[in-house]
């Protein structure tokens, strides 16, 4: 095993194998290699059955480059001794790997598995790319030629969401508009037609935007117009698929955004509402504004922009529940204490300490005319106002 055997070792082995004396074997092996050499000198080749062929071959002269000097040199042709093992020898030596045979590599199967995957991801990338850019994407242009209905939907769908949200406010308190029942019937029919994807997307949207039926209706209503181009142009199925996925992704995105940042909408709404109420007559205010903000609105004329700003601030701070006691406006008319801020003390804590309500801190900010509510520092003196309900 991995041993290095020399001439005498070989002779000894031969003596054992052929059952001859060692000396004889030695002579024999020596003669064996000597005659090979002689034969090579004589004919240039020697063939031995079972071992292989020794051959002297010519190597043509070739030009090369001296690695040290970079000069061109010519390597002269010379003769070389080669050995070509016999098949039987090759076979015997290669026995450990004899069971292997060349295998054809089927490339097509690799391609099949990879290419569709690539296409899918590309399509998705396209979709998301379109998604990220504004609603008026150039991607839809090729489609618009054939299916203007489907293409147009993208914009109304997106645009409609904002009006829908606003509209929904109105519908909640006053009447349900005529469009709602119509739209609600549509989903019943359409949902069966809609793909499984959209179906799964729906519940998500529903959970997320449970208080916005108007928006869902918008989503459900696009299939109304879409089947028409489908039947008219079956070849555009793929494009339609892309648009479908666009819609679905857009809907999910909007739903997620609304779900995650409801305050964005909430703030905008309350802000707008209050502005509106300031401008419009008090009777309208009562109709349009939610019950909680009614009080605020009613207070507005008395309280001036100062309190108005405060209300906004409150709204910003506590978006979730609007029904709470501190929507009552207070008037800060007197200083009840001077508070020296301790380390790690926050306005919320101070508010809790003096008023028993952590949501009343904006009054302290207001009263002390602090520029940065988060910039409290240790040792700061704060005047704590007495709060009286403004009535």
């Amino acid at each position, binding site marked *: *095993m991995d*041993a290095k055997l020399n001439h005498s070792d070989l002779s000894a082995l031969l003596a054992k194998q052929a059952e001859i004396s060692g000396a004889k074997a030695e002579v024999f092996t020596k003669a064996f290699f000597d005659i090979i050499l002689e*034969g090579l000198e004589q004919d240039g080749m020697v063939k031995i059955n079972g071992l292989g062929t020794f051959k002297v071959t010519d190597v043509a002269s070739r030009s090369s480059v001296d690695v040290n000097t970079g000069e061109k040199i010519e390597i002269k042709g010379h003769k070389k001794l080669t050995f070509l093992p016999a098949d039987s020898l090759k076979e015997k030596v290669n026995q450990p*790997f004899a069971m292997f045979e060349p295998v054809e590599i089927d490339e097509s199967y690799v391609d099949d598995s990879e290419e569709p995957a690539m296409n899918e991801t590309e399509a998705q990338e396209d979709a998301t790319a379109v998604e990220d850019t504004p609603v008026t994407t150039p991607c839809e242009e090729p489609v618009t030629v054939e299916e203007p209905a489907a293409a147009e939907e993208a914009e109304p769908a997106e645009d409609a969401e904002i009006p829908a949200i606003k509209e929904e406010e109105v519908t909640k308190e006053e009447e349900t508009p005529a469009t709602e029942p119509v739209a609600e019937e549509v989903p019943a029919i359409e949902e069966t037609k809609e793909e499984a994807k959209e179906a799964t997307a729906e519940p998500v949207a529903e959970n997320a935007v449970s208080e916005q039926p108007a928006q869902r209706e918008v989503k459900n209503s696009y299939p109304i117009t879409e089947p028409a181009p489908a039947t008219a142009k079956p070849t555009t199925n793929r494009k339609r698929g892309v648009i479908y996925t666009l819609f679905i992704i857009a809907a999910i995105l909007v739903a997620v955004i609304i779900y995650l940042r409801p305050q964005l909408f909430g703030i905008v709404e309350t802000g707008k509402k209050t502005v509106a109420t300031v401008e419009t007559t008090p009777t309208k205010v009562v109709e349009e504004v939610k019950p909680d903000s009614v009080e605020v609105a009613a207070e507005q004329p008395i309280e001036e922009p100062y309190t108005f700003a405060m209300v906004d601030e409150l709204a910003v701070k506590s978006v979730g529940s609007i029904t709470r006691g501190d929507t009552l406006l207070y008037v800060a008319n007197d200083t009840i204490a001077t508070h020296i801020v301790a380390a790690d003390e926050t306005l919320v804590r101070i508010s809790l300490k003096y008023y028993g309500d952590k949501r009343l801190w904006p009054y302290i900010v207001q009263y002390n005319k602090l520029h940065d509510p988060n910039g409290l520092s240790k040792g700061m003196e704060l005047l704590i106002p007495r709060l009286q309900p403004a009535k």
Partner: protein
Amino acid sequence: MNNKEFISKLAKRCGIAAAEAAAGVDSFVAVMTERLKENDQLNVSGFGVFEVKMRKERVSVNPKTGQRFLVPPKIVPSFRPSSKLKDKFNE
């Protein structure tokens, strides 16, 4: 020089019959094969070295059809002539 010539020459040199020489060659080749199978290296001074080499698997392409084949690994016998032998042919 073919096998027959080689054997007759060998018989003459050793002073034995051709058949005997042939048997001797066969057994000697058998010994060498056996050793090579065991991954042994056979050094014959003044002649060269017989050894086996491992060839790794590779992918070959049929240039005509473009088919790709995975060629399995294999063990091949090889011979390295001694430097003395190399020089001998280039004198």
